[in-house]
C-alpha cells in the first residue's frame, strides 16, 4: 500500500476533509476577531483597511484602562495566593496516603470541573451571608465608623484564588509524584538537613511546576467572566467591561481587547507548556530494574 492508495481511500479522505472543516469552524471566528481588530473603519463589522487605529483608541479609553488595571491586579494577586496555598497543599498531601488520599484527590478534581456559574453563585451567597453576619458585629465593636465589608475587588480575588488553587495543586502535585525521590535522599546523604533539602532540592525541582501553576491561575483569573460577574460588586474587570459594552453593540475596540487577551493567554499557555515539558524531561528517572 503506497501513499496513493491511502489518498484514494474514500473514508480517510472524508475524514481528512472533516478535520479541515472542523479546524476552520473552530478558528475562523477567532481569526476574524483578530483581523477586524486591525480595521481602520468606524464599524466593527465593516472592513475598510489596515490600521492600528483602534488599538490607540482602546488604549486611551479610561474605562478600558481601569478595567484592564483591575483585571491585572486581580489576576496577579489571586494567582499569587493560589500558588502559595496550592503549593503548600500539594506538599502537605504528599504525606497523606490510603483512602483519605483518594477522597482529597476526588475533591480536587471535582473543584476543577464544577461549572463556573455554580462557583459564582456559591461564593456570592457565601460572601453575602458572611458579610451580613460580620458587619453588625463590626458595628457593635467599633461603632458607626466601623468599615463595612462589601463585594468588590477583594471578593473577586478570594473567589478566583479559591478556584485556581486546585489547578495549581494538581500541577504541582503531579510534579511531586514525578520527582525522583532519590534526589531528596541524595541531598540528605550529603548532610543537608530536611529544611535545607527543601530549599536546595525540592523547591528548585518544583519551581517550573509552581511557575506553570501561577501562569495558568493568572490566565484563568484574567479570562474569567462568570465568577467575577457574581462577586464583583461595583468593580469592573476586563471581561465584565467587554460584556457590558457588547450590550451597546460590538465596537472595534472589543476586537482589539479580545486580540490582546488572546495573545496574553496564548503566550502564557505556551510558556506553561514549555516549563512543564522541559522540566519533566530533565527530571526523568531512568527505568528501575
Amino acid at each position, binding site marked *: 500500500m503506497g501513499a496513493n492508495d491511502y489518498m484514494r481511500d474514500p473514508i480517510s479522505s472524508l475524514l481528512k476533509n472533516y478535520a479541515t472543516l472542523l479546524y476552520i469552524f473552530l478558528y475562523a471566528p477567532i481569526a476574524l476577531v483578530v483581523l477586524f481588530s486591525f480595521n481602520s473603519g468606524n464599524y466593527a463589522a465593516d472592513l475598510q483597511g489596515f490600521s492600528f487605529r483602534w488599538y490607540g483608541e482602546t488604549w486611551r479609553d479610561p474605562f478600558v484602562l481601569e478595567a484592564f488595571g483591575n483585571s491585572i491586579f486581580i489576576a496577579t494577586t489571586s494567582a499569587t495566593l493560589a500558588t502559595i496555598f496550592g503549593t503548600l497543599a500539594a506538599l502537605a498531601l504528599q504525606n497523606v496516603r490510603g483512602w483519605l488520599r483518594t477522597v482529597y484527590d476526588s475533591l480536587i478534581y471535582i473543584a476543577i470541573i464544577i461549572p463556573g456559574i455554580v462557583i459564582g453563585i456559591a461564593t456570592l451567597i457565601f460572601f453575602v451571608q458572611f458579610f451580613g453576619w460580620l458587619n453588625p458585629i463590626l458595628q457593635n465593636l467599633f461603632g458607626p465608623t466601623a468599615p463595612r465589608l462589601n463585594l468588590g475587588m477583594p471578593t473577586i480575588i478570594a473567589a478566583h484564588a479559591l478556584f485556581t488553587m486546585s489547578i495549581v495543586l494538581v500541577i504541582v502535585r503531579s510534579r511531586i509524584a514525578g520527582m*525522583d525521590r*532519590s*534526589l531528596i*535522599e*541524595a*541531598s*540528605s*546523604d*550529603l*548532610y*543537608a*538537613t*530536611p529544611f*535545607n*533539602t527543601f530549599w*536546595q*532540592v525540592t523547591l*528548585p*525541582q518544583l519551581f517550573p511546576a509552581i511557575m506553570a501553576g501561577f501562569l495558568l491561575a493568572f490566565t484563568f483569573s484574567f479570562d474569567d467572566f462568570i465568577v467575577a460577574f457574581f462577586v464583583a460588586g461595583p468593580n469592573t474587570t476586563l471581561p465584565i467591561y467587554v460584556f457590558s459594552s457588547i450590550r451597546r453593540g460590538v465596537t472595534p475596540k472589543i476586537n482589539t481587547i479580545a486580540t490582546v487577551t488572546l495573545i496574553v493567554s496564548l503566550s502564557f499557555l505556551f510558556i506553561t507548556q514549555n516549563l512543564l515539558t522541559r522540566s519533566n524531561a*530533565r*527530571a526523568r*528517572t*531512568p527505568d*528501575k*530494574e
Partner: protein
Amino acid sequence: MTQSVVDFDIEFRNVVKTFGSVRAVNGISFQIPKGSFYSFLGPSGCGKTSSLRLIGGFEQPDGGEIYIAGESVAQIPSYQRHVNMVFQYYALFPHMNVARNVGYGLRQQRPKLLPDEIDKRVKDALALVRLSGYENRRSWELSGGQQQRVALARALINKPTVLLLDEPLAALDRKLRKDMQIELKTLQREVGITFVFVTHDQEEALSMSDRIAVMRDGKIVQEGSPTELYNHPVDRYVAGFIGQSNFIPGEVVEVGERVTVRTPLGVMLSAPGSKDAKPLVEKAKAVVAVRPERIGLWREGEAGGQSGFKGRVSQVTFLGDQTEYHVETEEVGHLLVKLSSGNAGFGGGDSVVAYWNQTAGLALLDD
C-alpha cells in the same frame, strides 16, 4: 573487645527490615573491616539495596543494631551519618552544574567553609575522577560513565568513613564496566576509604572485593574472601553463584575423611566436604560440585589406567584462551569442561573420557 569494635567501620547485629510481609533483610550480622572493599552479592530482590539503605539511614531497621565506626546509629538520621552513597542511577541534581553537584556536601557544613576552599576541593575531587574542566557542564549533558564519576566525586569529596555503592556499574555498557571496575578498585586503594559495594554480578564482585557476602532471601549465606568463596563454597547455591560448577546430585552414603555420594544411577562419587560448611550426614541430599576447569578429557582408548566417565562431546565453544566442551556422559549426565585452548583438539561428536581428581570435587548440601 573495644579494640575489635573499632577495627570495623560497619557492624550489623541481627538486623531485620520488613516491608509489609516481605522480609527484605532477615536477621543479618556482619562486620566490615576498616579500609576494605566489601561486596554484597546476590540475585535481584535478595535484600542488597535494603542493607545498603539501612547503613545510609534511608531505612530504619525493624530489629537488631547497626554500628558505624563503633557507634550505634539507631537515632541518627541520614544527614548526620558520615557515610556517602553513590546511587544506582547517580541521582545528580539536574538543576546544578557539575561543580555545584560535587560541592553540595561541603556547602552543608557548619560553620561554613570559605568559597575558595570549596572550589579548591571540588577541583581536586574532579581531578581524582579524571573530570577536570567539566565544572560548568550540566549533568544531563554527560555520558553515563561521566555522570557516575561525578556521583563518585560528589561522595568522596566529603571523605566519608564508608562509601556505599549500589550497583554503580549496572547502567554502563560492558566495555566501560570493565574499565570502571579497575578504576574503582584503584580509587579505593588511593583514598583508603571503606567501600561497600552491591552487585548481582559475581565476576564484578570477585575481581574487585577484599571480602564478599553472598546473600539469598534476605540472609547472608556465606561471607569470605573471593578465593575462600570460590574454593570452599558452603552449599550448592554459593558454588553456583560464584563461578561455574557442574553439579552431580545424589545421596550421602558415607562420611569419613571424604564424603561418598551415590547418584540415582548408582555411581559412587567421592569428594571432600567443604571446610566452611556444616558437616554432611548420611542419607542427606547432596551434590558433588566440580569446577569445569578441574575436569580433564581424554580421547577414548588413550585414557591409560585412568578411570573416568565415558561420554560424547556435544558442543565446542572457543573462548580464546580457553575452550568449553559440553560432554554428555551416561553415568553422570551433562558435564561442562573448560580446557586451555593449547591442549584442546576435540571436536563435536568425539568420544571422550572425562576425569577429575577425587580432591577436585566438593560434596555440598543440596537444597
